[in-house]
C-alpha cells in the first residue's frame, strides 16, 4: 500500500490515542467514594465512563459515515459526529447523576479541590460537607466532562474513520480495532489518574497530564504499528474485499 497512507493511519492512531487519554483526564471520575456522595464526580471508574461514551461516539460516527457509500467519507464530519455522540452520552450521565445526588441524596454539587469555581466564580468551600471531598458535578466539572467526552469521542472516531477510509477496513473491523486501541489508552490514563479526578481545574490534572499523554503516545504508536502491519499484509493475501 502507498506509504503515505500507512503513515496517515499510524498518525491517526497516535492522535486518536492521545486524544482518548486526554479525554479520560478531563472527566469527573468519582469512583467508589462518589457512590457515597463523598467525592466529586460520577460514581464509577474512568474506564466505564470513557468506554461508554466512546462506544456511543463510534455508533454516531459510523451512522454518519454510512452516508458516503461510494466515496471517502469526510473525515472531519465523521470525527466531529463521534465527538458529539460521546459528549451527549457523558452529558446525560452527569446530568442524571447530578439529579440523583441533589434530589436523592440531598446534597449540592460542589468541588472539593478548589475554593472558587474557576468558570462561574461561585464560592465552593462553604457548601462542602466537612470531611468529604466534594459532591456531584459542579459547573466546572460538568464543563470539563463535556470537553473530555468530546475529545475522547473525536479521537475514537478519528481512528475509526481513517481505518475505514484509507485502509478499507469494513465498518465492523474498523470499529473493533478502534475500540481496542482506545481501551488500551483509556486504561493507562486511568492508572495515571489513580482513582478520582475532578476535571481540568484539579491540581492532579496539571501534575499528571504530561506523563499520561506520553504513555498514550508510546502505546498508540506500538498498537498503530501492529495495525499498519496488518493493513500492509492484507491485500497481498488476494482475498479481495475489505479487512
Amino acid at each position, binding site marked *: 500500500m502507498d506509504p503515505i497512507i500507512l503513515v496517515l493511519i499510524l498518525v491517526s492512531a497516535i492522535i486518536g490515542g492521545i486524544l482518548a487519554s486526554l479525554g479520560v483526564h478531563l472527566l469527573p471520575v468519582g469512583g467508589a467514594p462518589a457512590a457515597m456522595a463523598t467525592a466529586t464526580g460520577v460514581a464509577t471508574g474512568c474506564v466505564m465512563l470513557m468506554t461508554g461514551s466512546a462506544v456511543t461516539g463510534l455508533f454516531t460516527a459510523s451512522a454518519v459515515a454510512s452516508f458516503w457509500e461510494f466515496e471517502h467519507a469526510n473525515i472531519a464530519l465523521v470525527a466531529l459526529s463521534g465527538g458529539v455522540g460521546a459528549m451527549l452520552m457523558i452529558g446525560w450521565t452527569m446530568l442524571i447523576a447530578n439529579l440523583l445526588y441533589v434530589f436523592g441524596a440531598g446534597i449540592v454539587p460542589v468541588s472539593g479541590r478548589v475554593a472558587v469555581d474557576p468558570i462561574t466564580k461561585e464560592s465552593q468551600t462553604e457548601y462542602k460537607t466537612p470531611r468529604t471531598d466534594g459532591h456531584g458535578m459542579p459547573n466546572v466539572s460538568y464543563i470539563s466532562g463535556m470537553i473530555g467526552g468530546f475529545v475522547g469521542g473525536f479521537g475514537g472516531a478519528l481512528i475509526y474513520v481513517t481505518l475505514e477510509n484509507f485502509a478499507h477496513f469494513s465498518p465492523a473491523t474498523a470499529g473493533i480495532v478502534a*475500540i*481496542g*486501541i482506545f481501551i488500551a489508552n483509556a486504561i493507562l490514563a486511568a492508572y495515571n489518574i489513580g482513582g478520582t479526578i475532578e476535571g481540568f481545574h484539579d491540581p492532579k490534572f496539571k501534575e499528571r497530564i504530561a506523563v499520561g499523554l506520553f504513555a498514550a503516545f508510546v502505546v498508540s504508536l506500538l498498537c498503530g504499528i501492529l495495525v499498519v502491519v*496488518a493493513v500492509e*499484509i492484507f491485500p497481498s493475501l488476494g482475498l479481495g474485499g475489505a479487512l
Partner: protein
Amino acid sequence: MGEEEKAEEKPEEKEKFTLHFPNENNLAIIAVIAGVIVSILPVLPAFVKGIGAILVILWGADSVRKTARYGLGTGVPSIGVLAMGYGIVGGVTGIVIGSVPALGGGGIVEPGVLVGVAAVGVVGYISGILANNEKFIGMKIPGLERGMAELGMAGALAVIIESSMIAGTWNAAVVIPEIIENGLIALIFILAAFGMLQPYNSCLGADERRGRTLLVSVEIGGLNCIILGVLASLIQGMAQGVPLIALGAITWVLFYSAYVRACLNEAHSVVGTGLIKTMR
C-alpha cells in the same frame, strides 16, 4: 438464634478442596504450550481447542490476580479489559499475518499467527514499564511488566483460539466474514474478558486463596465453551459443536460445585436466609 449454635459447633476440621494448581510459572508454561499447539493447528477438533482456551483464560486470570492484588486504583475489571483490548489488536494482526501462505497460512501447521501474539506481548511489556516506572506513571506494582505482557499474550491467544473454535479455522478469509463482520468478535471480547477478570474481582479480600479463585476461572472457561459450542454448531455443524458443549457443561458443573464446596468449607459459618435452600 440458630446462628450462634452453628458458629459454636464449627470447629470440625475443614477439609480444603485441593485441586493442586501448578505454581504461577508452571501454569504460564503449560498454558503457553497448550495455547500455541492449539492455535497453530487449526485442524484440531473444537473441543480440544476448548481445553486450550480454558487453559489460556486460566493463565490470564492468574496474571490478573498477580497484578491486581496490590491495588490498581481503578478496580480489577480494568486490567482484564486492558488484556482484551491488546488481545483484539494482537489477535487481528496475528490472524492476518498467519494467513500469509509463505508463513504456512493455509497449511496444516500455521505458525505465523504467533507473530501477532509475540508482538502484543512486547507492547504489553513496554506499557507495563510505562505504568510501573517511577519516571512515568509510577504504579509501583511488583511484576506489573510481566503481568501486562502475559495479559496481552493471553488476550491475543484467547481471541485467536475462540475465533477458530467458532469458525473451524482462524484463516482471515473465513474469520473476517464469519467472526468480525457479524460482530461475534464483541462476544469473544467480553466472554474471554470475564474469564480473566471475574475470578479475582469476585473472590478478592482478606481470605482470598489462589486455588479457590482459579476454580472460578475454569468454571467461566466452561461457560465460554458452552456458548461458543452453540455458535460452532450453527456455523460448523453438530459434529464440532456438541462435543464442545459437552466439555463446557461437564467443566462447568464440576468446577462450579467444587467452588461452592470450597466456599462452604472455608467459610467461618454458613447460615441460610430461608429464601434459598442451603446446601447443608
